[in-house]
Every structure is written in structure tokens, then in C-alpha cells.
């Protein structure tokens, strides 16, 4: 890649000047309040979570509280519900990210040309992302999926008459119902990042290739896609970080039923309804491990962008 793909993350390595030659503590002062707060509110709870994950701790049975060793982990990894939740989380995240990335790429390409109403179409595309997630989930569940008066079945009746099939979308395809509702909201996100990537392409080089007789397909596969790679990675990884944590859609559309409870929902339920604090914590630690696998890759990508820019 010859050009820097992203501008923002760039830092000119800060120069040491007379302005900056004051004491270390004077430099640290502005950073301290923010750092202290982040450390206390994000790191401390995780320490407690890890400790709690090794304890027998159910708020309903306070007298049984004590050290439980690996029992909670054993339960999480052998309990069919918990194992299912791990699998659902992986499936949900992968499906949503892959589908919305693909759609986002197609739509970004479609919008990356001048045409009448380009701005309006872009605005229309962004709209789903600006609906509060719970509201969007309610909209899909009640206004679109509902078997009796939802829009989908309504349109089937309108198109094929009274005898048209009237599937019960959510109970017949619970996972896909959730996946599509989330895809609808995240495709705009992917599209926005990929469109920004497309618009940062060096057009003079593309122009030159075209004059040299390269076909549009060749330009797409040999120039556009390689240029977009960083953006695709960034969009995919940021998207997975957000989707892995999805709670709103699962909670609203199926209430975690019909085999759609993902890990965030499972933890919520174990802790909030079953009050099994130890088990919920062990599940929490497992989510952290799962996300860490993804985020190590993510951080590496961000870091490579960061490095590239420092040059």
C-alpha cells in the first residue's frame, strides 16, 4: 500500500521542545483523573469477577458461600445451556458481521459514484443505525415479524391473497430473526466505514490504470480491494466487538428463548434471575477470554495502522 489508508490515528511523534521540558508529574497531572476513573471502574470489577468465579456464591443460599474451586467453570463448560450460549454467541457474531460486511461493501460501492439523490440515499441508508436498539428490536418483533398483523405476513396476504402462507417467523427461525434485525442496524455502520475507505482511494492512480487499459473488474480486484483491506478489517473487528456484546435484540425479540440465549443474555439471566453469582462470574470470565481472542487480532490491526501513520 503506497498511501496511508487512514488519516485520523496518525501521530507525528511528539517532538521534545522547550515547551515540553517540564517535570514528569506536571505532564501526568492532566491524565490522572481519567486514568484513575478508568482503572477503578473497568479493572477493579474484573478482579472481583475473577475471584467470584472461583466461589460458590448464590444469593438465595447465603450460608453456602465459600471457595468452590473450578466448579463454576466445570458447570459453564458442561451445562448444555451455557455451552449452547457460547455457540450462539459465536454464530450470531459471525453471521451478523459477515452478512453486514458483505452488504455494506456492495452498498458502499453502489454509493461511491455520482448520481441524482446520492446524499438522500446515503441518509436513508444511515437511518436504521440511528434507531435506538431496543426500539429497533421492538419494531422488528411486533411490526414486521408478528404472524397475525406483522408487515411481512401482511405483504404476503396482499401479494398472494387470503390463502397465502403466514409463517410465524420468530418461532420458526428464531436465530435468523435476530440475525436479520441486527444486520439491518449494522450494515449502515459497515457501509459508512467502507465508503470512507473508497473515497480515500488515490483516484489519479486508478485513472492512470484505466488509461493503460485495465478493465473495471481488474481495477476492482487489484486496486480497490487491496486498498479497502484495512477498512474491511477495521469494520469487521469493531463490528464484532459490538455484536458479541449484543443484549438488546436477544432480550427483546426472543427473551433468550428458543435456543437464542447468547453469553451476555446467559450471564444476565444467571445473575439477575437465578442469582448464581459464582456461575455468572465464570461465564463472564469466559466471555472476556473469547473477546480477548478477537481483540488481540483487532488491537494488532489498529496497531499496524498506527505504525504505518507514524512513519
Amino acid at each position, binding site marked *: 500500500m503506497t498511501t496511508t489508508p487512514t488519516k485520523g490515528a496518525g*501521530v507525528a511523534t511528539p517532538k521534545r521542545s522547550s515547551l515540553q521540558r517540564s517535570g514528569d508529574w506536571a505532564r501526568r497531572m492532566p*491524565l490522572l483523573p481519567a486514568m484513575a476513573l478508568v482503572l477503578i471502574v473497568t479493572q477493579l*470489577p*474484573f478482579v472481583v469477577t475473577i475471584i467470584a468465579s472461583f466461589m460458590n456464591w448464590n444469593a438465595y443460599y447465603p450460608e453456602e458461600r465459600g471457595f468452590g474451586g473450578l466448579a463454576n467453570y466445570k458447570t459453564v463448560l458442561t451445562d448444555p445451556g451455557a455451552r449452547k450460549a457460547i455457540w450462539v454467541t459465536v454464530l450470531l457474531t459471525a453471521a451478523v458481521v459477515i452478512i453486514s460486511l458483505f452488504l455494506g461493501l*456492495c452498498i458502499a460501492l453502489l454509493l461511491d459514484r455520482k*448520481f441524482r439523490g446520492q446524499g438522500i440515499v446515503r441518509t436513508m441508508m444511515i437511518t436504521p443505525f440511528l434507531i435506538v436498539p431496543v426500539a429497533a428490536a421492538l419494531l422488528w418483533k411486533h411490526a414486521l415479524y408478528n404472524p397475525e398483523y406483522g408487515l411481512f405476513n401482511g405483504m404476503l396476504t396482499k401479494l398472494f391473497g387470503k390463502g397465502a402462507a403466514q409463517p410465524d417467523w420468530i418461532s420458526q427461525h428464531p436465530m435468523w430473526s435476530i440475525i436479520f434485525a441486527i444486520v439491518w442496524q449494522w450494515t449502515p455502520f459497515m457501509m459508512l466505514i467502507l465508503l470512507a475507505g473508497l473515497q480515500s482511494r488515490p483516484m489519479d492512480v486508478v485513472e492512470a490504470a484505466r488509461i493503460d487499459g485495465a478493465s473495471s473488474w481488474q481495477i476492482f480486484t487489484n486496486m480497490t480491494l487491496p486498498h479497502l483491506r484495512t477498512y474491511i478489517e477495521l469494520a469487521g473487528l469493531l463490528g464484532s*466487538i459490538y455484536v458479541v456484546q449484543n443484549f438488546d435484540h436477544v432480550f427483546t425479540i426472543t427473551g433468550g428463548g428458543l435456543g437464542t440465549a447468547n453469553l451476555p443474555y446467559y450471564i444476565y439471566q444467571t*445473575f439477575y434471575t437465578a442469582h448464581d453469582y459464582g456461575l455468572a462470574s465464570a461465564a463472564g470470565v469466559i466471555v472476556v477470554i473469547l473477546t480477548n481472542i478477537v481483540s488481540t487480532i483487532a488491537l494488532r490491526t489498529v496497531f499496524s495502522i498506527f505504525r504505518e501513520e507514524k512513519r
Partner: protein
Amino acid sequence: MSTKTATLANGQQVNFKQPNRGGILLTILAWVVGLLFVFPVLWMVLTSFHSEADAATNPPSFTAPLTLAGYRSFFESAPWPSLINSVMASVVSTLLVLVLAFPAAYALSIRPVKRWNDVLFFLLSTKFLPVVAGLLPIYLFAQKVGMLDNIWLLILFYTVMNLPIAIWMLRSFLAEVPSEMLEAAEVDGAGLILTLRKVVAPVVMPGLASAALICFIFSWNELLFARVLTGTVSQTAPVYLTCFVTSQGLFLAKVCAASLVVSLPVLVAGFAAQDKLVQGLSMGAVR
């Protein structure tokens, strides 16, 4: 699907050559896709203005008479406390984020601390930790100190949730402040406040705006923590929405009206600052 992409790539020729039939087809396709994505929202708007009986027909009635009944029954259900809580939680936490993030970003770019790189990546890594794993300790802490169902607990949590994003974004803007200008200002004897106002602020204002937008949207949307940490007193609008669906009678128009009202601040902010959205979502990595 490969044909689609092929035609897309084909269509890019339109940028340079005369418009052709393929270009018109692509324009139509773009419009169709845009309409498809916005359609559920339009349907929600239309349904919110229908009576409950008209909202629940099959086949759907597109031309039923319009009414404000849905909005009326939403506002009669006493949503104001939760809306005010949401405004409190998102606006106050956003302001706190900016106040804390600006000096921190300053200490990571203009007058950097040692190992500023590590600090930056530590902050980013906290964003990758799933919040749900911290739910229990925070709940227990709140219970212990008697802060359950207190909006300030939520404000504190949202502030920390958004702080790393804001620091990253502001830093990427501050890094573009030319150091020559800072030195010149110093030589001319400008104090810190004056330097900040005259040299730093103009460059950083757009960054502050995107950071504020994204922090506001994230805290306005948040459901899980709001649900667990609040009760009747300090529940936020998303929590109120989840309790709004009843099992008795028809409620579709009412729910659509409620969902739209709750989404309105995000829609307005997002439309007003479309280009800032990308920067914010990518933590300043994409502009």
C-alpha cells in the same frame, strides 16, 4: 452475487465517461436499496399515526386515516421521568467525558507522558472488554453503598464506558496541532489558556463535536446496565420501552410512537452530524 459486483465495478466508469444505461440501472438499484433499508422506519412512522385497530390489520392498510392516538397514549403513560433520566444520564456523562478526556488527550499528544503509547493501547483494550463481565461487581458495589436505582451511578458508568473512545478521538485531533504554532505562542508569551483558546481549540473543535455525538448516542442507547442498575425512580427511556409492551390488547401504534419518540434525539443528532458519525464509530481512525 459476483455479477452484482462486476456491474458495480462497471458502473464506476460512469464517473469518467458519459452516463450510459448501466449507470441509470445502478442509480435505480441504489435508490431501491436505500428505500428498502429505510422502509421499516417509514412503516414505523406510518403505523405510529394509525389507530390501534388500523395498525393491526392483515393485509396492511397503507391509507387508513391518521390519528395522534398512539402518541397521546404514550405521553399519557407518564414517560417523562424516564425521558428526563435518559437526558440526564447521556448529557451529563457526555459533558463529564469531554472534561476528563480533553486534558488526558493533551497529556498523550502535545505534552506526552512517558510511554504514552502504552497508555493509549491500555485505554483501547478496555473498550474490548465486554461490559457484561463487570456487571455483577458493579451491581454488588452499588447495592453495598446504596446507590442502586440512582441515576448518578449510571452517569458514572457511562462516563467511564465512553472515556477511552473520546480520548482516542481527541488525541488524533490534538496530534495535528502544529508544534511550531505552540512554540510560537509560547515565545510570544501567550499563557496556557490563551494558547488553548487560540491555537488548540480551532483544530480540536470538530473532534470534540464527534466525540460528544458518539458518547451521547452510546449512553442514550444503553439498555443492559440501565436495566440492572435502575428501578422505578431512575429508569431510562430504553428500559421504559421494554416495559411498555403489554400482553393485553393491541399496542402496535403505541409502541411505534414510543419507539420513535425515544429514537428522536439520536436521529436528530445523527442526521445533523452524519460525517462525524464515521469518525466517532472508528474512534477517530477513519475520517
